[in-house]
């Protein structure tokens, strides 16, 4: 192991294990990140870049939204089938709201004072009143309903269904499902640009970002990004789309107008979600593999002279470094020797 592998990248904030959903509040200068393997939310200071509190929530918090007006942070606790509510003044969990099975995605609609939760194992969306802190509706969606985004211009909420290659449209007022948009394979995360009538959907298994026209209700363009995008965010001036590539530990910086990938910014390992400080434009990325939050600024003004190209991995053409790793079932060491003379594929994976 090299030094650079053992330590977080400079500027990265060490947080709890397996960070996923993240939100930042430019005004109070605080960030919140759901630490899925620590069952807590790490609260950090945007300026000092230090964790100021770790707030216990339910088991495996994945989705996270911040309600500035109500002074709450909501997490979807996938293994508890609950939504935890944190009071941002006291930094205590004040309520756990029962929802349906394996809630993994969250969205907030501030204008309607509603929090939306994608119950991935039940293919439904729970709608929570952000003030009463109660479930007020359960909306049918499709297989593996997850990430959500709100659209105050059209008064709708969008839920992407990972297992169904579709997006369910929910009426912002009545909570009724009002339609569906066909998407690409494995839609995983959505970011909504309501004023421009666009949504951007990361398709993690095919390494693309779908551009959805929200008025025509169809995919109008498909952008290729690096590998396994699972986090999406929009730049503060609306000129940039960011996609966190879980497969490579880099964030793709995409020019909105041309759809071109301008840069790939190295962050921690296997990043999950990302959030943009709308005051400074700083980007915060939850690195699930490194248990850090990476911080960077996008100072690109124009298209860079050199665009990222597909480089050849230095391992190609070389012997695989030998391994001796315990077998999951009985713990006995398995080594490269066993596979001598065979063609094989090593698939690296994490449960999250």
């Amino acid at each position, binding site marked *: 192991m090299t030094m650079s592998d053992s330590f977080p990248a400079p500027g990265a904030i060490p947080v709890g294990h397996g960070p996923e959903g993240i939100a930042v509040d430019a005004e109070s200068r605080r960030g919140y990140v759901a630490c899925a*393997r*620590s069952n807590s939310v790490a609260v950090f200071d945007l300026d000092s870049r230090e964790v100021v509190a770790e707030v216990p929530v339910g088991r495996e918090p994945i989705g996270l939204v911040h309600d500035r007006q109500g002074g709450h942070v909501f997490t979807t606790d996938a293994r508890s089938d609950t939504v935890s509510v944190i009071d941002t003044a006291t930094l205590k969990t004040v309520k756990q709201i029962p929802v349906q099975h394996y809630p993994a995605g969250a969205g907030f609609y501030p204008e309607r004072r509603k929090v939306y939760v994608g119950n991935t194992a039940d293919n439904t969306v729970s709608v929570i009143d952000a003030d009463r802190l109660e479930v007020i509706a359960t909306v049918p969606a499709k297989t593996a309903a997850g990430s959500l985004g709100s659209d105050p211009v059209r008064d709708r909420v969008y839920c992407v269904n990972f297992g169904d290659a579709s997006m369910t449209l929910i009426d912002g007022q009545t909570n009724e499902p009002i339609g569906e948009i066909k998407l690409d394979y494995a839609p995983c995360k959505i970011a909504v640009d309501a004023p421009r009538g666009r949504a951007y959907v990361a398709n993690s298994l095919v390494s693309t970002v779908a551009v959805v026209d929200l008025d025509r209700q169809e995919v109008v363009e498909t952008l290729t990004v690096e590998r396994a995008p699972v986090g999406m965010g929009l730049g503060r001036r609306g000129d940039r789309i960011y996609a966190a590539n879980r497969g490579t530990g880099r964030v793709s910086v995409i020019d909105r107008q041309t759809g071109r990938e301008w840069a790939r910014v190295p962050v921690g390992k296997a990043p999950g979600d990302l959030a943009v400080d709308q005051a400074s434009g700083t980007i915060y990325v939850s690195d699930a593999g490194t248990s850090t939050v990476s911080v960077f600024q996008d100072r690109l003004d124009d298209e860079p002279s050199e665009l990222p190209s597909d480089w050849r*991995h230095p391992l190609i053409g070389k012997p695989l470094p030998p391994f001796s790793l315990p077998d999951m079932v009985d713990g006995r060491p398995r080594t490269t020797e066993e596979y001598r003379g065979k063609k094989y594929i090593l698939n690296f*994976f994490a449960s999250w």
Partner: protein
Amino acid sequence: MVNVWEHVDPRGEALHFCKIHNIQGTVLIDATGEYIARLGLRGVPHNVVVDKKGIVQAVGVTTPDEVRATLTKLLLPFG
């Protein structure tokens, strides 16, 4: 398959994951991530394709198109 970066209870998490997704076959645990770091990989999923001589033929290959193209090449008799 090699499970990496699990942070808490790697064996339990890997077993749970394989049960849910009905994954059979050999699964190894790289709990510290030391081995994947030696390969210079910084994300998941990642596939590393190895030929009969133990030489790495491809790195990455996770989208259905990439997998199809690489496997076709690897499975050719003289490939």
